[in-house]
């Protein structure tokens, strides 16, 4: 088998893997939608549904929750049926057209990299958690440095300069000139140093 065929097989395997992941995500999303609807119905029971003046605060959420439960279940059924009836790849490499409109066709969903997605989400949460502890300048400095050095594999000097601009530079511009307050550190030692 030559190299070109190898990459083709690799590509189609990756595509099948992505397809499978997306289908599970659809199923999970449909379940979450249903649960959110149910939670809205249950949560809105504490609010009056009807008042002498007409519908009360509980009226709208209860109906919306009900619609979500129904639609979420319908979606779940559609995805499950699509999962079962989607034809497998034929031996000659062609694939039958998937009739179900409910699943996103392969070429339409953008490509993402799961490790990068996780790294971004976690780093943003860490930034949010440390923002008021370390102060904006230190937290943002570390955040930008992480993104440039570790995720972006940029040169050290460029990363340091950019991180300084985004942290200290932005802090000065926003707090002095735009009068938008950004958090200072809650640790006295750091705060005294001007962070």
């Amino acid at each position: 088998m030559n190299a070109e065929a190898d990459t083709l097989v690799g590509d189609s395997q990756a595509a099948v893997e992505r397809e499978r992941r997306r289908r599970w995500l659809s199923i999970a999303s449909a379940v979450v939608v249903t649960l959110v609807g149910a939670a809205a119905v249950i949560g809105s029971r504490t609010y009056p549904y009807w008042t002498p003046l007409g519908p009360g605060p509980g009226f709208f959420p209860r109906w919306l929750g009900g619609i979500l439960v129904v639609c979420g279940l319908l979606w779940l059924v559609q995805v499950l049926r699509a999962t079962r009836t989607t034809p497998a790849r034929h031996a000659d490499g062609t694939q039958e057209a998937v009739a179900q409109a409910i699943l996103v066709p392969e070429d339409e969903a953008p490509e993402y990299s799961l490790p990068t997605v996780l790294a971004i989400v976690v780093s943003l949460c860490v930034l949010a958690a440390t923002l008021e502890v370390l102060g904006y300048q230190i937290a943002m400095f570390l955040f930008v440095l992480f993104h440039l050095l570790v995720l972006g594999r940029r040169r050290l000097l460029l990363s340091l300069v950019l991180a300084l601009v985004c942290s200290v530079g932005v802090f000065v511009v926003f707090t002095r000139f735009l009068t938008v307050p950004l958090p200072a550190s809650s640790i006295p030692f750091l705060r005294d140093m001007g962070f």
Partner: protein
Amino acid sequence: MLLDGFGAALSPQNLAFALIGCLLGTILGLLPGIGSTAGMAILIPLTLALDPAGAIIMLAAIFYGGAYGGTITSVLLNIPGEGESAITCIDGYQMTLKGRAGVALTTAGIGSFIGGTVATLALVIAAEPLSRLGLKIGPPEFFSLVLIGLALLVGLVGRSVLLGIISATLGLLIAMVGIDPVMGMPRFTFGDPHFFDGISYVPVLVGLFGLGELLATSGQAAPRPTAPTLRELIPSRMDARRSAPSIARGTVIGGLVGLIPGVSSAISSLLAYSTEKKVARHRDELGTGAIEGVAAPETANNSHSNAAFIPLFTLGIPASPAIAVLMGAFLQNGITPGPTLFTEEPELIWTVIASLFVGNLLLLLLNVPLVSLWTRILAIPYSVLRAVIFAFIVIGSYAVSNSVIDIYIMVAFGVIGFVFRQVGLPLAPLVLTLILGPFLESALRQSLQLSRGSFSIFVDRPLSLAFLVVAAVILLASVFSASLKRRAGLPTDAEV
């Protein structure tokens, strides 16, 4: 009134805001994956410290600056920055391959200017009579009218009607958080006073459109543009003669379609392109780099974008996701767009309308000569741009109410936006109902209070009945014509 508006819009301060908005919007529009809706969402926080007129002038400028940025990538790189420029890729990129990128971009710029200016003129003429009509519209009519917009959005641009309904309902439910608009009772606040004012739009929009898009495209290698030769920028007399009728047709198509709530400008550019295919004199050349294929859709989408201000300013209904984000910015600044604007805030509204003219002109004067600068921005490594954007969206979400909770909300909605893109849930209905939710709920409940709880009020009033019938027809038609729609090649999601 309009002249006073021009006086205010041309003040150095407001001119500077329009200028900055145009530049920032173009830069964000250039970035792959970030369209003008995401661009506006990301830049809303920047406008929080400004006065309302300045903030809205800047956001409007970001809005059409972003659209032009999308055109640049379509023509030069064959990558649509957003749905509305997707069709421009076909002939625009062919023109680039023939060394005529400069002509294509100039023509798009001129077409956008003409389309936008004509649509804004229509806004000036229609504003007062329509807003008088808007004032007569009661809660039942408003409710039914919004349903038309939702039906169109769910039916026309979604992959599946079911997913559109789910998206719209989720948006409404998110809008329920906070103090209920009729009785003042806190709902779904988890006992946290932070949520009494509701979940603020900015972190939600920044998360859904900004972060969500960046996550969804995180696996893509950034495109590396080869700087095109911009030998000629000025279209020849032949180009001008060929594109003039296309620009005229694009203006009319975009202007009319832009009035319909719920239809995104991607539809306008598609319609304009298919019209060219049918009626243009050189229609055989379309697809091989014909100037009509750039002029018509680009004119149509800008004409659409500006015409979409008409329902927003006169009826208080945002016609597209981008306009919905703009409406969110209005609300954030304490202004409720709608017919009352003309009587309550005439100075502000006319300043904004005048600035639409100014902005369209700025876009033409600025962006066409600067094309080579814009292509150089595309050469900045993506990871660097991304880090800077992350820093910016974090600051923006925090600054809305100086709260870390808003950063978490932004991240959470970023993940939600990412999942939406993966499973094919459309974002457009959610944004529309998120912004309109409180208005929709008050309209429904006020109607039912008027009728003492009887739903017949919606069918007893003729205008409301007419709106409801239209909405039902649209929804039913789109359920049954889903396969037709796919065959016709209409886009399966709104431009985001």
